């Protein structure tokens, strides 16, 4: 009810009172109970985030099991898309992700550095920031239409890996810019001020202090770019991805940048909606390869990231 000091009447004689001085009162018990409830409730929510991921992985693996083999990765679709493997689609996705990263990473990171480190707060900066935020909110199917108009038709690239990669690059740019800005923002202002006071120029500070300390955050943005570029179907299906293309199994360079290619995400869509009598496991196995692809890409970047973070100075 009330704290121990409130009055002797509630606590009986002197020695008892001294013994109970630190014993839990109703109030502390209530406080602790509320804390415990909060802890477990919030913990359950955190677990609930992991659960769907594990369930998805387990479900996919179980359903895909009959078709999973090394050959599924290295073979080309055979028996009229009902068998064989996904090699052309896997390489196609690698092409698209690589080309789009080559375009989007430099532009996005450099723009992010400019916006966070150089730009003053004026109408131009505000306009650019607004554009980035709006670009991030544009649905991917709209990017696809833009890609068709700008790259396929206007720039004359035709339906090609180039056109599709550029469309993906435009779609993923805002992710990279925003995460670069946030990573730079996380470097304490005091670091910069200390350097400026020692006479270092802005560029020296960025090169030697800000970038090394924010590189792990920037990499996170690039990882997100890869996942999004590998997984999205809409921007590529009108700009450079085909239902089927005959290539040699196992070749690493089956496409030229002006060809169209197959891609895992679109392949998953077509084997689900278009291929007759496709074995039940085929779409699931394709999904496992897609997730595996993103996972391999991500873990490479995560390892790099933790190495770099170990050097962090605070």
């Amino acid at each position, binding site marked *: 009810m009330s704290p121990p000091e409130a009055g002797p009447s509630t606590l009986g004689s002197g020695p008892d009172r001294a013994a109970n001085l630190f014993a839990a009162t109703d109030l502390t018990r209530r406080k602790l109970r509320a804390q415990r409830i909060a802890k477990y409730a919030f913990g359950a929510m955190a677990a609930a985030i992991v659960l769907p991921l594990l369930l998805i992985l387990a479900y996919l693996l179980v359903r895909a099991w009959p078709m999973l083999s090394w050959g599924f990765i290295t073979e080309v*679709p*055979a028996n*009229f*898309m009902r068998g064989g493997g996904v090699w052309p689609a896997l390489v196609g996705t*690698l092409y698209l992700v*690589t080309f789009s*990263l*080559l375009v989007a*990473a430099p532009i996005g*990171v450099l723009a992010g550095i400019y916006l966070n480190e150089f730009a003053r707060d004026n109408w131009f900066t505000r306009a650019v920031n607004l554009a980035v935020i709006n670009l991030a909110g544009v649905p991917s199917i709209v990017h696809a239409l833009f890609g068709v108009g700008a790259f*396929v*038709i206007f720039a004359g690239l*035709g*339906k090609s890996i180039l056109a599709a990669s550029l469309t993906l690059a435009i779609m993923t740019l805002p992710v990279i810019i925003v995460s670069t800005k946030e990573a730079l923002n996380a470097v304490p202002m005091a670091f910069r001020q200390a350097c400026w006071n020692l006479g270092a120029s802005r560029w020296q500070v960025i*090169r*030697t*202090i800000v*970038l*090394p300390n924010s*590189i792990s955050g*920037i*990499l996170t943005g*690039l990882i997100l770019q890869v996942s999004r570029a590998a997984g999205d179907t809409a921007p590529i299906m009108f700009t450079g*991805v*085909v*239902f*089927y*293309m*005959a*290539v*040699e199994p196992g*070749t*690493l*360079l089956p496409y030229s940048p002006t*060809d*169209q290619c197959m891609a895992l995400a679109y392949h998953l869509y*077509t084997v689900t*909606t*278009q*291929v*007759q*009598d496709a074995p039940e496991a085929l779409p699931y196995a394709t999904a496992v390869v897609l997730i595996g692809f993103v996972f391999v890409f991500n873990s*490479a*970047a995560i390892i*790099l990231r933790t190495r*770099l973070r170990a*050097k962090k100075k605070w």
Partner: protein
Amino acid sequence: MGRLAARLPLVGLLAAFGCGGGSSSGKPNAGKPAPRTVVRNTGSDTMVNLAQMWAEEYRRISPNASVEVSGGGSGVGIRDLAQGIVDIANASREITASEKAQALKNTGKTPQEWIVGYDAIAIYVHRDNPVQEITFEQLAGIFGKGGTIERWSQLGAAAEKDRIIRASRMNNSGTYVYFREHVLAKQDFKLGALGMSGSKEVVELVGHTPGAIGYSGMGYKTAAVKFVSVAAKAGAPAYAPTFENVRDKKYPLARSLNMYTLGEPQGETRKYLDWILSPAGQAVVRQAGYIPVAAGQGQ
């Protein structure tokens, strides 16, 4: 140190890609760098499986040619052809005069038609549906604007689920256009049909849904659905979409499967089309569940 760290990740990522690309050029395949020709082939969803099967087979005959196949619908294929971004457009309908004019305006060439096979648009119902025959009039009553048929009992059938669920296509589909022109007499579709995005999806939906009816290419039949025989008029004999009925032109919903090229095709495109029309190519048509161009061919 700091400088190095800043450059490491990007360099690392680039190097990873560089190696991926670089090492492969040293692979044994580099020993035969014969120039590879790409034939671009887009269009009809009805034909996309057939086109894929041709492409897969053709790789064995002409290993240096690579055929790109994509779907999207007859309209998409013809539009891409008119913009000059594909070599061959697949269409399960005929090209329209305005599409022809568009192609001529953009590319200076007139699209040339190649009939590569025949298809029947089959009317699919669920395997357990007792309906055996249907007339154009009844189909228009089910699918057409102003049609009054909403229940299977109106057709005299005691189906498990009485309400009719209509599986249709979207207007970029040649099948949709054909059905509208030939069954609905160019009237609009009744609202409330499920517009599926692919031929296979229509059949799949019907297979999962006892009260459903849908139209799709005859090549998409599965064990979960059955064909309904179709009569052009009430009282006329109804025919099932079988190979013989389509070949003898008895089945009323048969159409040609077309390929279009810009003008007279050249080089690999020409060779590909010649192969498609050869007995070997027409055997694939039969295998895909469609009807070859010349009766007796490709058996």
